[in-house]
C-alpha cells in the first residue's frame, strides 16, 4: 500500500469490517468508500450498527476483522490518538469546568503554540460557528444549541481531515435542530472537510447528506444520494424506513404486469418472473387522483375507507375489490378533496404511474 493518496483513491476506505460483541454481530462484512470533502450520513434504526461503524473509524471501538484506510494510510489498528479526526457527540461532552474559549483551545494547548496564537485561533473558530462574546461563559450557562456549536468548534480546532458527528442534533428541540442542520451543512461545505454523520432521523439525512448509507442489522442496505435512496430504494427495508411507503401483496402475472387484487398494473417487473408473489410498493404521494378517467393506464376504482386531515394535505385510506381488500394510503391535497367530494364511503378513481411502482420479493424486510 502506498502512503500517498493517489488520484482516484477514496479518502476513506472501509473494507470487509466485521464487529462482534460477544456472540452478537454488530457489523457484518461492511465495505464502503468515502471521497474527500464528502458529507456522508450513516442512517438506520437504533442497533443497526451505524454508531459502531463510526466508533470503529475513530478507533474507539476496534473492529473484529477488516481494514480501514484513511488518506492512503492503513489505520485499522491505530489507537484513536494516532488517527486524524475530530468528533462531536450527542452529549456534546464539553468539559464543564473549562470556559467556552478554553474548551475550544483544549486541543491546541498541547501543541506548544504561543498563547496568543491559540487564543486567536479559538476566537476565530467560535466566530465560525456563530458564537461571539460568550468566550468566558461555562458550558452550563449556554443553551443546548450553543453547546453543540462549541463542541463543533472544538472538534474543528485542530483542523482534522475527518469530522465525525455522532447523532449531534438529537438532543436538541425541533426548531433548533432544523436551524443547526442547515448551518452545519453550510459550514462543512465551506471548510470542505470530509464528514460522517450518524443519525436515525431520515429527514436529517435527506437534507444534509451528499450520500446516505442506509444500514440495518449490521449490514449496508443501500448507498446513494438522498434522491436515489428516496426514489429508488434498493430493498423493502429502505423503502419502508425512508419516507412513507404502501406495501401490498401482489403477484407477477406477465413480464411488465403485476396483479393486485382485481386490478393488473403495468410496471417494471425486473427480475421477478411470472407467477412470483411480490410486495408492491407505492408512495402515498405517487397515487394520482386528479384528472383520472377509468381506462387510463393503471387506473382503478377505489373506495374511501378513512380520511385523516393533516393540515395542508389529507391522508386517504383507499380500499375496495380492485385492491383485493388491501388498503393503500394516498396523500391528496385539500383542494382536490373539495373538487372530488371525498368522504368516507365514496368511490374515487385513482391511478398509479407505472414508473412509481417498485416490487420487492415477498419475505424480504
Amino acid at each position, binding site marked *: 500500500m502506498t502512503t500517498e493518496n493517489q488520484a482516484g483513491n477514496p479518502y476513506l476506505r472501509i473494507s470487509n469490517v466485521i464487529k462482534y460483541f460477544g456472540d452478537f454481530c454488530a457489523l457484518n462484512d461492511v465495505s464502503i468508500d468515502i471521497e474527500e470533502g464528502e458529507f456522508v450520513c450513516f442512517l438506520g434504526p437504533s442497533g443497526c450498527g451505524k454508531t459502531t461503524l463510526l466508533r470503529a473509524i475513530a478507533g474507539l471501538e476496534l473492529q*473484529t476483522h477488516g481494514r480501514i484506510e484513511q488518506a492512503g494510510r492503513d489505520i485499522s489498528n491505530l489507537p484513536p490518538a*494516532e488517527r486524524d479526526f475530530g468528533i462531536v457527540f450527542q452529549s456534546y461532552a464539553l468539559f464543564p469546568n473549562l470556559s467556552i474559549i478554553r474548551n475550544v483551545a483544549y486541543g491546541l494547548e498541547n501543541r506548544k503554540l504561543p498563547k496568543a496564537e491559540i487564543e486567536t485561533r479559538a476566537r476565530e473558530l467560535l466566530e465560525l460557528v456563530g458564537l461571539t462574546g460568550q468566550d468566558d461563559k461555562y458550558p452550563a450557562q449556554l443553551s443546548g444549541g450553543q453547546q453543540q456549536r462549541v463542541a463543533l468548534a472544538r472538534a474543528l480546532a485542530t483542523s482534522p481531515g475527518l469530522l465525525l458527528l455522532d447523532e449531534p442534533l438529537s438532543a436538541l428541540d425541533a426548531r433548533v435542530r432544523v436551524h443547526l442542520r442547515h448551518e452545519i451543512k453550510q459550514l462543512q461545505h465551506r471548510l470542505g472537510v470530509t464528514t460522517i454523520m450518524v443519525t436515525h432521523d431520515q429527514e436529517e439525512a435527506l437534507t444534509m447528506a451528499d450520500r446516505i448509507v442506509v444500514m440495518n442489522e449490521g449490514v449496508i442496505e443501500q448507498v446513494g444520494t438522498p434522491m436515489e435512496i428516496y426514489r429508488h430504494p434498493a430493498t423493502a427495508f429502505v423503502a419502508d424506513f425512508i419516507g412513507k411507503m404502501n406495501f401490498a401483496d401482489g403477484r407477477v402475472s406477465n413480464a411488465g404486469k403485476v396483479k393486485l387484487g382485481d386490478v393488473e398494473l403495468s410496471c417494471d417487473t425486473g427480475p421477478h418472473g411470472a407467477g412470483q408473489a411480490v410486495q408492491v410498493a407505492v408512495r402515498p404521494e405517487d397515487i394520482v387522483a386528479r384528472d383520472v378517467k377509468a381506462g387510463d393506464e393503471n387506473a382503478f376504482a377505489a373506495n374511501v375507507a378513512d380520511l385523516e386531515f393533516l393540515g395542508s394535505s389529507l391522508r386517504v385510506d383507499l380500499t375496495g375489490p380492485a385492491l383485493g381488500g388491501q388498503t393503500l394510503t394516498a396523500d391528496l391535497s385539500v383542494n382536490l378533496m373539495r373538487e372530488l367530494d371525498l368522504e368516507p364511503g365514496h368511490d374515487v378513481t385513482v391511478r398509479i404511474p407505472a414508473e412509481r411502482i417498485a416490487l420487492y420479493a415477498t419475505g424480504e424486510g
Partner: protein
Amino acid sequence: MTTNDLTQAAAAAKYGRPARQRMGRDDLVMRGTMGLLGLFLLVAIVLPLYAMLSKSFETFTYRFDTIEFQVSGGEGMPWGKTMNALALGTELDVITPESMVTSNGGRFQATEFFPDFSFRAPTLYRMRNVGEGGGGFMVAGGPVYHADWVEMDGNAFRRAQIRPTESHGIDNYLTYVNTPSLFFSVYNSLFIALTTTFIVIILAFFYAYALTRTCMPFKGVFRIIALIPILAPSLLPAISLVYLFGNQGIMKGLLMGESIYGPIGVVIGSAFWTFPHALMILVTALSISDARLYEAAEALRTPKLRTFLTVTLPGAKYGLISATFVIFTLVITDFGVPKVIGGQFNVLATDIYKQVIGQQNFQMGAVVSVVLLLPAVIAFAVDRIVQRKQVALLSARAVPLVPKPHSRIDKAAAVYCGAIGVVIVGVLGMAFWASLIKFWPYNMSLSLANYDFDVMDGGGWEAYGNSIRMALYTAIFGTAIIFSGAYLVEKGRGFGFGRGLIQLLAILPMAVPGMVLGLAYIFFFNHPDNPLNFIYGSMAILVLVTITHFYTVSHLTAATALKQMDPEFEAVSASLKTPFYRTFAKVTVPVCLPAILDVSIYLFVNAMTTVSAVVFLYATDTTLASVAVLNMDDAGDIAPAAAMAMMIVYTSAGIRLLHALMTKGLHRRSQAWRMR
C-alpha cells in the same frame, strides 16, 4: 438476518485472528498504572488473605515415635535399654492423643518422661532422632535433627525439649469445633449480632422516617446528633457504659442487678456506634420515593397504616435489607465494644485477639478468623445482590415526596428523635465528663489531669501524634490510589479483563473484618522470606492496612462520581491528541473534587477511630490513639482512656467541620459551571 451472514467462526476462518489495536502512549501508561494498582491490591489484600488461610491449615504435632532415650546410672556405668518416647509416654500415661497437638511455639519437656527425675542425681541421659518426619529436639546448644546420640547430665537434660513437627490439614478446625470454650463464641457472636441488628434497624428506621417523612422541628439538629457516633472509636460507648452502669456507675440501679459486663453492655454499646450507619442507608432508602404512589393511595381512601404497610415499607425494602446486613457485619466483626465491656463473654473478634496476643497461637487465631470471615462474606454477598436490584426501583419521572405537616405525628416524631438524641448525647457526654473528673467516684472535681497522657502507659501524646500522622498519610495516599484506581476501572479503554479483576479486588476488602485483615498482615508481612518484611512494625504497614480496610466504600464513592461524568471525555481528548492524564488533571479531578474530599475525610476519620485493623500491627514507636484507648482501658486507666477517646472525637469533629467549610467554599467557587 441476511444470507451473507457470517458466523463468528466463519469470519475467523476467512480473515484470520481478530484484529488487535496497537497500543498508544495512553494505553501503555494506563496499563502500566493498572498493573501497579493490581500489584498493590494483590499485596494489600489477596496474598495476606491467602497467607492466613494457609496458616489456618498448619498444624503442629509432637512425633514422639521419632525420639529415643537411654539412661545410665552415672559416669562410667553402662547405658540401659533404648526406649521409644511414644511407648514410654503411653506406658507412663504422660502423653495423651490431645497433648500431642500443639502450636508452632509448643515444646514438650523431656523430663516429663522420667517422673523420678532429679537434676542433682548423677544419672546421665541420651537422646536421639530416629525415623522420618520428626521435629527434632532442643538442647542448650540448639536444635538437634541428627540421629546420633546426644549425651546430657541431669542439669542439661532439664532443658531438653521435644519440638513439634509441622503438617497441613483440617486438624485445627477439628480442634476448634471440639473446644467448647472456643466454639461457644460462635453462638455468642451470632446472638449479639442478631439482637443488636434487630434493635438498631427498628430504632433507625423510625428515626429515618421522622427525618424524611414528617415535618417535625429541628430536623437538622437531629440529623447531626444521630451522626455523632461515627466520630468516635467503638471503644468509646463501651467506656461510657462502664461509667454509667459499671460497678461504680451512676445509673447502675437501672439494670436491676444485672451486670453491664456481658451481653447487655455489648448490645447497648454496639447499638450506639452502628446506629448512624443504619440511619444513613435508611434515610437514603426513604428519600427516594414517588409522591404519586401516596397520592394514589390517598385518592383510594387507604387508611394511613395500610399505606405505611403497602407503600412505605415495600419502597424501603432494599434499604432495610441492606442496612440489616451492614449492621450485622459491623457488629459481628467489631472488636472494641466486646473487648472493653464483654467481661467473660467471649465473641469471635475477642477470641482472635486472645489467641494471638494472649496465647500466641497464631494457627488458632487464623482458624477463628476464617470462621469470622464466613458470616461477613455471606452478608456482603447478599448486600451486593440486593443493591444491584435497587437501581431500577425509581423511574426518572418520579415525583419526589414532600412531607405534609401533621401536628400529632410531627410532635410524636420529635419526642422519639429527642429521646434517642438524649441517649446519644448522654453516652458521649458521659465520656466527656468522665475524662474531666479527677478521680471517679471519690474526687469529683474537674481537672485536665486525665489528658496528661505522658505519665501513663499506653503511648502518651506520641500515640495521638502517630494517629494524626497515620490518618493524614492514609487520607493522602489512600485517596490518590483509590481515586486513580476507580478512574482506570471506570474510564479505561479495552483490557476489560484487567479492569474487571481490579473492580473485584476493590470490592473484596469490604467483606474482610479488620481483625482478620490485621492478622493476615502479620502472616504475610512478618514472614522472613517476604521482601516487604521491612515495612512490618513501621508506620507504612499501618497506613497500608487502613487504606485496604476502608478501600471499598472509598472506591464506590469515587466510582459513583466518575460514572456521572460524560463517558466521552476520554474519546474527545484522544481525538484532540491530548494525553489522558492531562484531561484527568484538568477536567476529571476538578469536576470530582467534592467526591475526592469526601473520600479523604472518610479515610481520615476512620483511620483515627479504627482499632481492629491496627491492633496487631503497631510497634512501640507507632502506637496509635485508638490503641492507646484500648491499652489504657486494659490497664485499668479508664479515665485517661475516656480522655484519649474524646481526643479522637474532637479531632474527627474538627476535621468534619473543616470539610464542611471547604465543601461550601468549593461550591461557591465552582458555582458558575456546576449548575445543571
